């Protein structure tokens, strides 16, 4: 049953929205994602791809079916354990930059690692600087995030998702706010993570070039997987 090459697996996952009226947004979703894969999810808006991504990220627990991640059944897990998993193993980049507005870019990146407590503060700070530098934000590190542009904020959010070396990085249009130069930087980073460090990337995207260059495309329509 547990195949160590499989990092993430869904079995017959379905989900309803209850507002404004009951509506089945996901139907019978079953797929496996291997370690080190770079997967993109595409589909028209309303096809349920973001909703599915949120389920996979454990941030939405209201669904039916089963979700397996890194050899662990997450469907019946307690919320405390899910929080630990999100902290340690999942890096999530939102469509809109969700950063903590009172903190500097550096602190925003550091907070998940400080929470994890695997390394000392100095080590974390060094790693955070390195990641920000990689994303071209070295000189924005000490600025408050509310003073950054949209693109810069999104890159800080990506740096935050990478800080704990998660097993899987999920992005809801992670390059949606970026120009082509930064998009290609992010793409290269994702590519490098999957090929060299065996980390897994799942990204929802509307960018066809971005999708085509990935290892595998999952296409969705009306809450079902087509391809």
């Amino acid at each position, binding site marked *: 049953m547990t195949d160590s090459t499989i990092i993430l697996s869904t079995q017959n996952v379905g989900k309803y929205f209850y507002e404004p009226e009951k509506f089945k947004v996901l139907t019978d979703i079953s797929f496996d994602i291997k370690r080190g894969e770079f997967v993109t999810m595409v589909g028209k808006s309303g096809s349920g791809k973001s909703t599915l991504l*949120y389920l996979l*990220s454990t*941030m*939405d*627990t*209201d669904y039916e079916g089963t979700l397996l991640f890194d050899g662990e059944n997450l469907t019946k897990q307690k*919320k*405390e354990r899910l*929080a*630990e*998993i*999100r*902290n*340690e193993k999942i890096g*999530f980049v*939102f469509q809109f930059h*969700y*950063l*903590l*507005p*009172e*903190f500097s870019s550096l*602190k925003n990146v550091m*907070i*998940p690692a*400080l*929470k*994890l*407590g*695997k*390394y*000392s*503060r100095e080590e974390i700070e060094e790693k955070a600087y390195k990641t920000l530098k990689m994303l071209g934000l070295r000189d924005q590190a000490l600025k408050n995030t509310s003073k950054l542009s949209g693109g810069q904020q999104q890159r800080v959010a990506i740096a*935050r998702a990478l800080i704990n070396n998660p097993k899987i990085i999920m992005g809801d249009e992670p390059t949606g706010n970026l120009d082509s130069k930064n998009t290609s930087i992010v793409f290269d980073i994702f590519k490098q993570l999957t090929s060299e460090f065996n980390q897994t990337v799942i990204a929802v995207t509307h960018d066809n070039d971005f999708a085509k260059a990935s290892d595998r495309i999952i296409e969705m329509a009306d809450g079902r997987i087509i391809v």
Partner: protein
Amino acid sequence: MKKYKHNINAEIAYTHLFSKKKQTFIAALGVTVGIAIFIFMNSLMNGFEVASIEGLFKSTPHLRIYKNDVLSKSLIDSPDSTKVNLISNPKITSESKKIINPISLLKTLKNEPEVMGVTPNVSANVFYKNGDSEVSGRVSGVIIEEQNAMFNLQSYLVDGGYANLSGYQNGIILGVGIAEKLNLKMNDNVTVTSALGVNKLMKIVALLETGNKAVDKTLSYINLPVAQQLQKQSPSYITDIYVNINDFEKAKTLISKYENLTGYDVEDWETANASAAAANKMRKMMAFAISLSIMLVAAFGIYNILNMTIMEKLNDIAILKAIGFSGKDIVRIFVSEAIIIGIIGILFGLILAFILIILMGNMWVGGDIGFFPIRVFPKFFGVGIIFGLVVTFFAGFIPARKAAGLDPISIFRK
């Protein structure tokens, strides 16, 4: 796995509070106002209550032991139960008002643990005369030192001192109302005539003003032996024994005990001053109702402002949860924020309450009250601190727990 314990929850709470100083200040102000009003109003009610009770006990003891009037009975009852013993037109017995062997009775009472003060008293109805003008009233024969210890007589004397009475056998502490009517001053003489026709020329050694006009127009204090003489009685003649106990609220419960102990009738202050006692009871109920309403209003005010502060941070809560903070972490962060706001607010609240009380205490009301009878009651400051901490804890805990239980996505979707 977890090698380092970075105190990130505290760091986040601290940053939230300090990056939005104005908001923190306003939230703390909400607590300050709630706490200050809570303490101030309770002190106000309590000060008022204490003053009212003190006024009552200026001349009334907690318990009064006296011999009730009895009608004369036939000396020997007929053994035949079918016959009725009858004295036509019976009179009050002449010995009836006298308490027998008062010295030993006083000693017995003094040995009771709850008794704070005991003093014998002889009261007599008299006429005060100066020339042709005359006023009817009552003299109270007292042992002045004991009387002063029990009723703090000195504080109601507008002229002279209570000790003058013990130095002058035929001295009198005269009510100001009587002095005014008879046009008398300190060191003047006044003639006191008892119902039994005894005349005494007495010297005014002090003037008494209780603030209660009915008392000031009739009552005066004289030495006990003089009162006995006015009644044509021996030095063992005592009509009343006044008893003060440690807690005047318990007076009623001690009536039967003292009746058994002494064999005489006992009257408590509530029976003696039924209307004052009823007013006191009413004041107490009012104070409780007001205190409770203020508590509710203050608690709601504090809850609202803290709840709002947390609800504004709902998006941050979702982000923190998304990057791996558990519900417990969220509750810890926001409860510690609420408690810090609470502590700041309480500190300023205590200061504000103190200032309000001092200001109020400097307001002149006049009459026998003087300044408004409000004091700094440490009790209410203590209760205020505990109340503030409990309310701020729950004001942080309830909304934080509610937010912490949500899936982050359900917050983002709103």
